């Protein structure tokens, strides 16, 4: 009976540990550089479907995640998202208004945002959704752009440097 109790206690302890491990938040902290060879072909060059940053710097804590994105000859975009999913204002280039939210869903970081700016077509609104996932020192971002009833999705891979 005593032996059975010990075995059960040990099993419960191991189960709790495994559950805690499974629920641990992924940490995206680091400097990430775009890897063209491993990314979808239509996101670089002269006719990108969805352009991705050349480099992303991420600083994540238990409560928030700061993301700074830079691209060649393009204005940088940065944001400090609360990980509780609350809406924040994104620091976008002049003439662009953007807000969004981020939250951890399982092993992924999911960011949704709405961007608006003026163009000769009138006030233009774009919705973005990004799903970030980690595999060792490789970050994969699947990004969807939705606008005027049309949507496009592309995948980019980044290496930790």
């Amino acid at each position, binding site marked *: 009976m005593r032996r059975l109790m010990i075995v059960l206690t040990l099993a419960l302890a191991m189960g709790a540990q495994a559950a805690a491990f499974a629920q641990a938040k992924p940490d995206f902290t680091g400097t990430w550089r775009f890897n063209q060879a491993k990314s979808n072909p239509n996101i*670089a060059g002269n006719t990108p479907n969805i352009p991705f940053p050349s480099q992303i710097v991420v600083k994540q804590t238990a409560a928030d995640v700061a993301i700074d994105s830079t691209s060649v000859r393009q204005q940088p975009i940065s944001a400090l998202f609360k990980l509780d999913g609350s809406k924040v204002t994104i620091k976008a280039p002049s003439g662009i208004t953007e807000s969004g939210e981020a939250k951890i869903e399982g092993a992924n970081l999911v960011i949704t945002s709405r961007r608006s700016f003026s*163009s000769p*077509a009138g006030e233009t609104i774009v919705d973005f959704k990004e799903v970030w996932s980690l595999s060792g020192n490789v970050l994969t971002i699947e990004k969807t752009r939705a606008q*005027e009833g049309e949507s*496009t999705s592309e995948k980019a891979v980044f290496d930790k440097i």
Partner: protein
Amino acid sequence: MSMKLAFATVSVGMLLAATASVQAHHSFSATYDGNKPVTLRGTVSKLGWSNPHAHIYVDVKNQQTGEMVTWEVESAGASNLLRQGLRKEDFIGAEVVIKGFLAKDGTPTVNASAFTLVAAKKEFVSDEAAPTP
């Protein structure tokens, strides 16, 4: 003397041609704003069937003012479009949906990453992937 003049004329001509070619094949990041994606619906009014880029002129209604604006859409070149089975005749008067990026100077100019000929219900992609993002 006339030989020298001919040589100088040819040299200047070659230099001008090279400059025009460089200007025609500019980089995306220098001309277009990757932070400003646009999706346009309109009708093709004119076509520049050329390489390295074709230029599709599309009449698009401004959603706020109702004003009709002619956009210049830079797409993949004529050779590329031909390889995808498109001909000049497919464009004029056609209803199109353009996905692209607004020019940095704010003019109604857009780089098309993809466009759809509505009647054909088919999307064509400008597949000019180059080495830098």
